[in-house]
């Protein structure tokens, strides 16, 4: 395997000789000393003082070097002697307190491949609502250990990388061999939300919720504070999506995964997505019936701007609250589609003004343009205004 940009490859060889670090680094003249010191410190966390570490480095940051050294030692059979670190990355993270509504904005959720450190330091600069550290599909089986350690260490020391975004980790399926290990690795640095892929029944949610209860209690976090985002990407998942959405108060959103879904039902993917139409509508219904957000799938063709805009508009029209993204340049389009439009905001303002007027005059009922404003209309108008207000202050979009 060739060393990638801003990453390093670490090997560990057992021996009786005192621990030595052999380093071949493109930034050796500037950071050689620090890299070796970091490697030695990580080895000390594992109580390892013998053997040889070989590091081939292309500008990896300290936490990446530590992660890769740790993975090499763990694979050699060593266990961590010291406790996992807590969040020292300078950021207190309570995304939900910033919004008066129960769930934060999720117009855009940007996937970050979990084993690629070079994408992490700037990930929070682009204004995505959610950043997803992905330990599942973007990480091959041979790198699952490396990825989960990297996720833990970045959450321990560099939550500042993620800006104002909601920090989400997509773990491996809870029913598989890796999911529980992913969660337990992150016990001291639980993210804002866990994205659970391949949800097939409410039992999956129950299993995850139970683990989170234990981990929150263990780490002194408020029980119930870690949100679950449920990803349905199969026929069974779609058909049971109502039960999945309602399985736990932790569930904040139901997400749809079009790629795996199409494969599961043996459909051919088409440009207009007709093969997934019922599935997407079902997900929206299940989500809204359960009072959670509905989030649509990613659009992989990053060169097709017009296609992506049309996709976002269609998703919004169907009732989705956001989409998945694979590249930051998709963020602006997504936000444009999922922000309330100017005419929606205008009308909402007028509705709320009429309601206030009616209340002042002691009338039981308010009306606008000759039509009665009933409770659902009033609630939606208030939500739009609240959404618009917090959107304007959070948007990274161009206003000049």
């Amino acid at each position: 395997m060739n060393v990638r940009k801003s990453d390093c490859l670490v090997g560990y060889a057992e021996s009786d000789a005192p621990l030595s670090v052999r380093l071949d680094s493109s930034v050796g003249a500037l950071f050689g000393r620090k890299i070796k010191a970091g490697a030695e410190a990580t080895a000390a966390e594992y109580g390892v003082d013998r053997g040889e570490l070989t590091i081939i480095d292309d500008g990896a940051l300290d936490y990446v070097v530590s992660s890769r050294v740790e993975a090499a030692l763990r694979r050699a059979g060593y266990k961590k002697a010291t406790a996992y670190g807590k969040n020292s990355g300078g950021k207190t993270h309570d995304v939900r307190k910033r919004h008066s509504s129960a769930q934060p904005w999720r117009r855009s959720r940007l996937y970050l491949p979990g084993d690629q450190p070079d994408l992490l330091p700037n990930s929070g600069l682009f204004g995505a609502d959610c950043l997803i550290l992905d330990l599942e599909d973007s990480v091959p089986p041979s790198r699952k250990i490396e990825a989960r350690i990297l996720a833990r260490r970045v959450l321990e020391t560099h939550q500042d990388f993620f800006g104002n975004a909601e920090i989400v980790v997509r773990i491996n399926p809870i029913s598989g061999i890796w999911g529980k290990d992913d969660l337990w690795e992150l016990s001291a640095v639980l993210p804002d939300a866990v994205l659970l892929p391949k949800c097939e029944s409410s039992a999956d949610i129950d299993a995850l919720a139970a683990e989170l209860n234990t981990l929150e209690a263990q780490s002194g976090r408020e029980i119930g504070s870690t949100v679950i985002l449920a990803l349905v990407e199969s026929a069974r998942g779609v058909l049971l999506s109502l039960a999945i959405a309602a399985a736990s108060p932790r569930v904040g959103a139901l997400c749809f995964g079009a790629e795996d879904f199409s494969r599961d039902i043996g459909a051919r993917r088409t440009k207009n997505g007709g093969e997934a139409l019922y599935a997407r509508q079902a997900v929206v219904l299940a989500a809204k019936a359960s009072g959670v957000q509905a989030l649509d799938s990613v659009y992989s063709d990053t060169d097709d701007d017009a296609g992506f805009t049309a996709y976002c508009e269609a998703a919004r029209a169907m009732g989705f609250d956001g989409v998945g993204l694979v590249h930051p340049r998709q963020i602006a389009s997504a936000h444009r589609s999922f922000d309330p439009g100017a005419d929606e905001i205008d009308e909402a303002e007028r509705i709320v003004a009429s309601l206030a007027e009616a209340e002042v005059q002691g009338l039981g009922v308010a009306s606008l343009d000759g039509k009665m404003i009933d409770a659902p209309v009033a609630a939606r108008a208030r939500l739009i205004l609240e959404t618009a207000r917090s959107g304007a202050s959070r948007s990274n979009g161009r206003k000049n």
Partner: protein
Amino acid sequence: MKWNANALGRDIPESIDGRILKPFRGASPADQDGTGRARGGPVRPVPARGKPDKLAKHWDDLLDRMDVRSGETISFHHHLRDGDAVVNEVVERLAARGIRDLTIAPTALFPVHDRLVSFIESGVISKVEGSMNGAVGVACSRGKMRGVSVLRSHGGRQRAVQDGDLHIDAAFIAAPCADPFGNANGVLGKSACGPLTYPVPDSLCASRVAVITDTLTPFPCAPRSIVGGNVDAVLEVESIGDASKIVSGTTRLTRSPTQLLIADLTARFIETTGIMRDGFSFQAGAGGISLAAVVFLAERMRARGVKASFAHGGATGILVGLLEEGLLDAIVDLQSFDLEAVRSCRENNRHIESTPFDSYGPKAAACAASMLDVAILGATEIDLDFNVNVNTHSDGLLLHGIGGHTDAAASAACTIITVPSFRKRIPIIRERVTTVSCPGEVVDVIVTERGLSVNPRRPDLISRARAAGLPLVEIGDLMNDVRSITGIPDEPEFSDRIIALVEWRDGTVIDVIRQAL
């Protein structure tokens, strides 16, 4: 050895190899001596009556005519970029003739020229004057050259050639199209490269001038960028280079999210501070961020109905598109980067070839760059005084030439440096740059993905940027923010030996580069 501190506090030796060095005194000192006009060229024997016999029969014939001796200076241009075949060929053949101790004076070098390292090690090449990249730069940094090299910008090199500081004994001009008289251009032929203008000063001032072409046409060759009256010998060869590496097929916009973010902020700065207005002009390189900045700027120009009077610097298909769309009135071009730019240079009389004197001449009665409202440039390092390094990396290795950077920066009304705040692990902003290429007094704005910083010397830009609500940051804060991510790097180790001088456009020495250990 006696040392003098220059205006930036860098110590410059009094003399090197018998040459008295003048320390840098500021970007535009008031009391400069100047002769604006190009001087007369070399003395040649008056030709006999009748048609001249300039066409050499083969390489040996050409080299006999050019009569290069050991210890002399030979020059090349870099319009053929990484597809060039002429530089290596000439040096190899001179080495085979036992010639040694040459000074080579290229306008730039590319990875294809890495082979010159073996000639450096064997003493065929003793130093480089002009520009150095890649393996040649590393070889120089490691002390493999016998002499002390000199790095100059395009404008600085033109001045040095004109003033006689850089005396060229033999200029070898690779030309995509030429006639046996020596007229040549770069827009026709199978290895077309666009403008053929970097070698113009060489053709005017070198003792002997050769044109090497792979597309020979009958006299008169038109158009002509090199004038045959300045040329002594012509050789036709099978190929002057690899066309696929001379220019690329098309230039694509970068996909890097960080680069796009910086480009977007740059375009926003240019529009909202009022620089972008009808008739304005700009220069941007062909690198990822610059190109993207031009694309985003063009979107804003379209939205506001603004047209630019001209764009300066290297041309790409993207710039050509804007010219043909009518968003630009002219391209003033020194180097074409893709096939579209070559085509436009050939066909469009508003795509204007420009020489180093026209564009950047420090002793010209103003140059094209001084007509610029804004220049968008890069850097390897920047310091808290806004000094810029484009020559060395933070490990001390010489890896880049200056190009038109300092000429543009010193001449344009607003100089913007666009950089990521760190590359791999290396912070771009430091307390003190490893090497000064360009002084902070001509650097106005730094744009990074973490915000932009305006030089305190420009309160006018600061207040406009603030009024526009741009993300202004103090450069010191930016440096510290990045250090909290990367850690503070150690300083690289150098020996005392000076391996290269960095000259300012006026020939004074702005910094020295020592051997990296």
